Structures are given as C-alpha cells and as structure tokens.
C-alpha cells in the first residue's frame, strides 16, 4: 500500500465516520426531544429500540435470536420481495433484451408499454385480490406488476443503445448470434439493467408493505395493520425503523453485487473522464 492508497482509505474512513456521526446525532436529538415531550405519538428511540428487540430479536440463540414473530412476519415479507424480484428478473431481462434489439417491435408496442407503466400499481391491487388468493400469491403479483416496468424499460434502453461499432466488431469477428448476445449485448446493457434493478428494489419494498396492509395474514405490513388498530405506536415506529433498515441492507447488497459485476464500468468511466 503506498501513500496515496493510505490517504484514500483514510479519507474514506473519515467520510464513513462522519455519515454515522450525523445519524447518531439525529437519533440523540430525537431522544432528548421525545423524552422532554413525553408524547404518546413520538416515542423516544430507546423505546423503539427496546420494542424492536422485544418483538423480533429476543429469541433463543438457536434461532439466531429471532423470535417467532420475526420468523413469522419478517421472513415471509423478505421471501415475497425476493420471489417478486426473481420473477421480474427472469421475465424482464430476456424480454427487455429481445425488445431492445428489435426496434420495430418496440415502436409497435410502445403505447402499450407506456400505458402499462403509467398505471399506479397500488390501485390495481384490488384487482389482484380478486384474481389471486389472498396471501403470498396476490402480494407477489402486486410486486411483480409494479417492479417489472423500471427493469423492463431500462433493459430495453440498455439493449437498444449498444454501440453499433461494438456490434459490427462482433460481426466482423464472426461471433454467432448467441455469442454476440452473451459477450457483447448483455454486458453492454448491464449498467442500465442494474439501474432498473435498483429502482425495482425500492419499489418492491413499498409494494410489499402495501399489499400486506390490504390483504395478508402475516408479514411486516400485517404487523403494522395490527399495531395501528391497537394504537400501539411504539410497535408502529419499530416497524418503520425495521423497514428503513431492510431497505438499507437490501440496497447495500445490491450495490455490492453491482460493484463486482460492473467494476469495468466504473473503471472505464473514471479513466475516460
């Protein structure tokens, strides 16, 4: 490690510390304020924290300290998100690549695509309740219906905007259609696919909670409905914080995958700018 690397890593650590310091200060101020107000609507962070602990993380060590409430509500919700995103990736990426490489078909279907993505999917949820069984089926359907659009449209864009020189080079070297797809089109579209995936992830979290609020017998949203009905504000707040943490962690995981898969992209951009 040379001096420059040391300086860079020191700067990174400083930035990291500063970010957490901001968060810690905000929580501290909230604590002081809430304690002084003693409001039933705004419990102090310490109360929220202990409620989270009591609800989800006070289980036996053999279950990684997860309570039955946690395994019964958090895990099903995560499962729905992952299942929904999985379906969206398996359907959206191949479809998006196919459409992106056939501009005539895309131009033909464009009104349909624009119409589809303009429908606020939360309003379609009652339709899904009628169509599917209440529970995982209906919730995954809602997540898929809402998250397919950002991924599909981004993939179409990525596949359509592959540099023609890159395609021509592949043809000049007589790569087969499949080889062109896997070694040129897919990698080239990957940055846009990941952009779509990030959007899809944040949307999926919202739709997961929403669909559980309206029709579910377990899950994080279901727990929220219960707490709301019982005017149990500490639990409501605990769920909110949990959702924030989940969103943060899922995003960080996706970011980590992207960092590895698109290392070339960041590198190339830094070198040309």
């Amino acid at each position, binding site marked *: 490690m040379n001096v420059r690397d040391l300086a860079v890593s020191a700067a990174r650590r400083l930035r990291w510390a500063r970010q957490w310091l901001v968060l810690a200060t905000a929580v501290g101020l909230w604590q002081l304020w809430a304690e002084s107000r003693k409001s039933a609507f705004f419990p102090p962070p310490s109360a929220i924290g202990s409620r989270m602990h009591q609800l989800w993380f006070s289980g036996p060590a053999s279950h990684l300290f997860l309570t039955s409430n946690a395994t019964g509500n958090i895990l099903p919700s995560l499962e729905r998100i992952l299942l929904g995103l999985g379906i969206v990736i398996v359907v959206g990426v191949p479809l998006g690549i196919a459409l992106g490489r056939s501009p005539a078909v895309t131009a033909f279907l464009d009104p349909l695509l624009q119409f589809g993505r303009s429908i606020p999917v939360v309003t379609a949820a009652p339709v899904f309740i009628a169509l599917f069984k209440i529970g995982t089926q209906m919730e995954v359907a809602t997540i898929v219906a809402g998250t397919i659009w950002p991924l599909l449209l981004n993939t179409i864009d990525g596949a359509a905007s592959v540099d023609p020189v*890159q395609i*021509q080079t592949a043809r*000049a070297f*007589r*790569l087969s259609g499949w*080889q062109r797809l896997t070694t*040129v089109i897919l*990698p080239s579209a990957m940055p846009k696919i990941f952009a779509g995936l990030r959007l899809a992830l944040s949307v999926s979290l919202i739709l997961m909670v929403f669909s559980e609020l309206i029709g579910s017998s377990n899950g994080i949203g279901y727990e929220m409905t219960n707490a709301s009905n019982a005017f149990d504000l500490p639990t409501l707040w605990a769920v909110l914080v949990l959702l924030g943490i989940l969103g943060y962690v899922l995003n960080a995981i996706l970011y980590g995958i992207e960092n590895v898969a698109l290392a070339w992209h960041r*590198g190339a951009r830094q*070198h040309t700018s």
Partner: protein
Amino acid sequence: MLEVTDLTRAYGTAGSAHLALKDVSLRVADGELVSIVGPSGCGKSTLLRCVAGLLPPTSGQVVLNGTPVTRVPGRLGVVFQDYSRSLYPWLSVRDNVALPLRRTMRGRPARRQAAAASLAAVGLTDAGHRYPWQLSGGMQQRVAIARALACDPVLLLMDEPFGSVDAQTREDLEDLILRVRAERGITILLVTHDIDESVYVGDRVIVLTPGPGQIRADLAAPLPQPRDQITTKELPEFVHLRSEVSRLVRGKPLAPSDDTPAPSDDTPARAAAPAKPGAS
C-alpha cells in the same frame, strides 16, 4: 487474390438514394498492401465494409480467393478506426484478443495462449491481464491489431486505424503493420485520409473521389523495402508521389498519364505538369 468488380453501393430508398460507391473495380494480389485514400465522404469505409462482407453491395461483387463474399469470410481481420469503441471495456485485453477465436478454436486455455502470442507480436506481452481502458490510445490500437491478427488472417482490413493517436505513436504503428506484413505475407487494405501514410505504407495507393466514390487513380508506390520513417520520406520518389496523391485527393489535374508514374526520372517534368493552363 482479392477482386472487386463494379462495386456500387447506395444508401437509402430508391427515391432518395445516395450513392456512396459507384463502379469501383480493383484487384489486390496476395501479400500486397494497398492504401485507399480520399477526402472524407468518398466511401472509403463503405468500400471496406463491403469487402468485409458486413454490407451487401447494391451491385457488383467482391471475390476473395475465388469465392464471392456474401458474408464475413473466414480468416479475415478487421481493425476499426475507433479503438475505444471497438474494444470491449468489460473484457480484459487478453479476452478481447481471444474473442475472434471463439468460432474457430475450442477451449479457453488454447484461445488464451493464442491471444498471448498475438499480443507478443505487437509488443504487448505484459498487458494481457489489464483492461483496454487502462492503456494508452496507442496501446489500445495495438490490442485491436493483435485481435485482428489472432485468427491468422489472410486479409486484413484497416479503417483509418491510426486516426486518433499522436504522430510518434502513429509512425510506430505504421512500422508495426509493415513488419507484420513482411513476416506473415498478409494482404492488407488500409483506408486512411493521411496522404503521407498512404504513400509510406502502401505498395499501391488508390485515390477515391467523393460523392459517389469512384477510383480516380491507382498508383504504384515502388519505394524500397524495408521502409524507414526518416530515410524513406527523404527520397525524391516519396516526395514526388505524395505531391501527386495530394493533388489527386484535392481534385487537381496532374500529368497526362493518370496511373503508374515512373518515379525514377522525376522532378522537372513532374513539377511542371500540374500547372497546366486552363486547369483552375
């Protein structure tokens, strides 16, 4: 032997068609290096794409070693102008060079070995594990050349290959091409807009006129081999030939006989020739 016969290529639909090439015919012997030079918009790149089988001609045909070219022929190497776009940024240098071998060579280790040999041939032995964007422009173009050489081509097509590198690097790359040609006897078609370059590397220089592209002149460049960036360019034959090509490119008339000048007996008669009365 590469034979191009009455090649015409139009773009656009019948009503608003734009002729890029019109009745272009040329023959290139095996192992010959032919420069194609002309002002921008003269259809140089279109000609190369037709020869490469990437673009079907509107009429006329391209025949390579007795076989009509209807799609990209085997053992063809192509170097595109813009290396920063034709090299794949997500592949390492080695994998970029190994790419054309996907079709012909089984097994990744074998391909990587062939790629390493090809990289060594262009003087990039140690760059295989790096990414194209980590290299300088000149080195990237070397990678593109190594990639074109990897499939052991009989015909190498180069589309303004050195347009975006600095002068010194450009001269090095020109000499690299001459060396590769001498070592392997590859037939090379090199498109350029640089007149010095066309004369320096070519056995023949073909001058195209713009819109539609037609062959204006086909000049032999009988300069001694091996060529040298300094001494070759000092030769009166070189100076003479480059002036002649320059005039042709600019569309000025020259000495009565249009092709194959005799560079042995030169200056006075030649110098007088272009200033023909009534020309301008």
